[in-house]
């Protein structure tokens, strides 16, 4: 599980940035041709994100299939794992493309991309933890729900965690989380949130690529 949640975003980010900088000259060449700008950039993005997602789904799926997944009743949990993994790939590739587009300087772009990953994977949780400790006198349920929603990594982690029966450990807060995420409505909302995380960077990608002057 930690592999999905930590490594998948990292791979998405690094590959996204690397791929964009590598093919920058080729993009410039393509731009000279009578092709729509959005289709060039979207094509680039979908190529990277699509192949990464596919490799994740196949790479995780095939061994588990051979292991006899269909016979076990964990198939829905596993499907959820794959779906969140796919979403994380798409989200972080899109974010890294955005960063690369906004930064001409390769090193700077790389730095920002890794920083972004570090922020969402580690630092965000640290800040989250600090705020929980500092404001522990106050009711924090809604806050922690919201804070989880705004970080795709946390959101995926919580979704998967609640599917495992370890959720009983989470006590009172866990019960509230379960009440929210456990229902279909909660699942839909969190999926929408993940979708939003994917769509927003892609939209910005298209927007910038339209007006950017190379």
């Amino acid at each position, binding site marked *: *599980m*930690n592999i999905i*949640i*930590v490594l998948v975003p990292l791979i998405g980010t690094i590959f996204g940035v690397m791929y964009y900088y590598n093919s920058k000259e080729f993009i410039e060449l393509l731009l000279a041709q009578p092709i729509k700008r959005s289709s060039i950039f979207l094509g680039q993005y979908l190529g990277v994100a699509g192949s990464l997602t596919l490799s994740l789904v196949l790479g995780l799926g095939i061994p588990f299939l051979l292991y006899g997944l269909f016979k076990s009743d964990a198939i829905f949990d596993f499907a959820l794992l794959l779906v969140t993994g796919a979403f994380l790939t798409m989200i972080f590739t899109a974010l890294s493309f955005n960063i690369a587009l906004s930064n001409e300087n390769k090193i700077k772009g790389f730095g920002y991309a890794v920083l972004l990953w570090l922020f969402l*994977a*580690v*630092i965000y*949780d*640290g800040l*989250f*933890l600090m705020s*929980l*400790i500092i404001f*522990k006198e106050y009711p*924090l*349920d809604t806050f*922690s729900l919201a804070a*989880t929603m705004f970080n795709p990594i*946390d959101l995926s*982690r*919580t979704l998967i*965690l609640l599917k495992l*029966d*370890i959720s*009983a*450990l*989470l*006590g*009172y*807060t*866990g*019960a509230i*989380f379960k009440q929210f995420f456990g229902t279909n409505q909660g699942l839909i909302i969190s999926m929408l949130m993940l979708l939003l995380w994917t769509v927003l960077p892609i939209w910005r990608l298209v927007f910038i690529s339209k007006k950017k002057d190379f």
Partner: protein
Amino acid sequence: MKHFLFFLSLVNVIFGFSQQDKTITICPDCNVKTVREGIKMASDFDTLLIKKGTYKEFNILIDKPLTLLGEDFPVIDGEDKGEIIRIASDNVTVDGLFIINVGTSYTSDYAAIRVVKSENYLIQNVVLEKLFFGIYLEKSNNGKVYHNKIIGDAQDEYNSGNGIQLWYSHNVEVDRNIIQGVRDGIYLEFSDHVTINNNTSANNLRYGLHFMFSNDDVYTNNVFENNGAGVAVMFSKRIKMIGNTFHKNWGTAAFGMLLKEINDAEISGNTFEENTIGINIEGSNRIEYKNNDFIKNGWAVKVLGACYTNTFTKNNFLYNSFDISYNGKLNDNVFNQNYWSDYTGYDLDKNGVGDVPYRPVKLFSYIVNQTPETIVLLRSLFMDIIDFSEKVSPVFTPDNLLDANPLMKKSL
């Protein structure tokens, strides 16, 4: 009077009237149609043989030493009207009955079988269903409750009773019973020197086994499964808990074992598997934990404070989310020669003992104790990182809380 004489002679004809220890047969088609009638007729040390059938009776008072023997489980149906059997005499045996529909009362605790101020009783092979209280022993010493089956249908804690309840009853043996679906499976209050062996207590609303102010008791080889909490031991001294299994007591407020104000107890050879909290300890001193297995629990041991001079030796801690949770900085408990599945040290001199001490308290478990909401960060990378840093240089967790001799292999 004439009537009675006729009746006596009839009994005479039927049973041959052999001085003592005679048997009175009760069945729906016999002369003696009800249990109460049989008891009235019987003299001391008689046997009442109850044949198969349904007897709609309640408030049956056994006030002389009798044996009630059921054949093919005759049904005694209380029709929810009240208590069913009350034993108020020494040397009573109840065997092989099927008792259903005990009345519910919040003032007099109706029981299927209640023993009051009596000794040397034996209650065995009894099946109880649809009950309020099952077997209620009240100030009754030196008895035996053996091989009974109690199946309740309790829904709420406040309007249900206990399976087997002991109140001021000493030297009682509770053996091989199966209890499920009641509030507390077995409940002891002010009862000393009780042995509880080989019972199965499952699916109860509150506790599988519950001690209150009861000293010098022993329970061994019992199974506690899927209860609100497996066993609650409170305000008791010198309890021995050996070889029991605590399984799947899983839920947001569930425990395998709950210890509160317990002193000088011995806990050994037990298995705690898949409980939210294996053992929850509060204000308990001088307890010896030995050779227990803690497997796949949320918290294996949660120490809540005021626990001194406890020793943990040769236990196996396997795949628990948290091995030990502590909420203070003070530690007076000893951990020695346990096996920890999370131990990452090495054993260069090959003596089976790890060369690096193991710290069972993670920083995360400390933080969760302080701020329960932070548990939502369970299994995040950040937590792994700070746990690691705490392991390298302990700041928040007690410095001396460590197992200096962690075993490399599971102790048997």
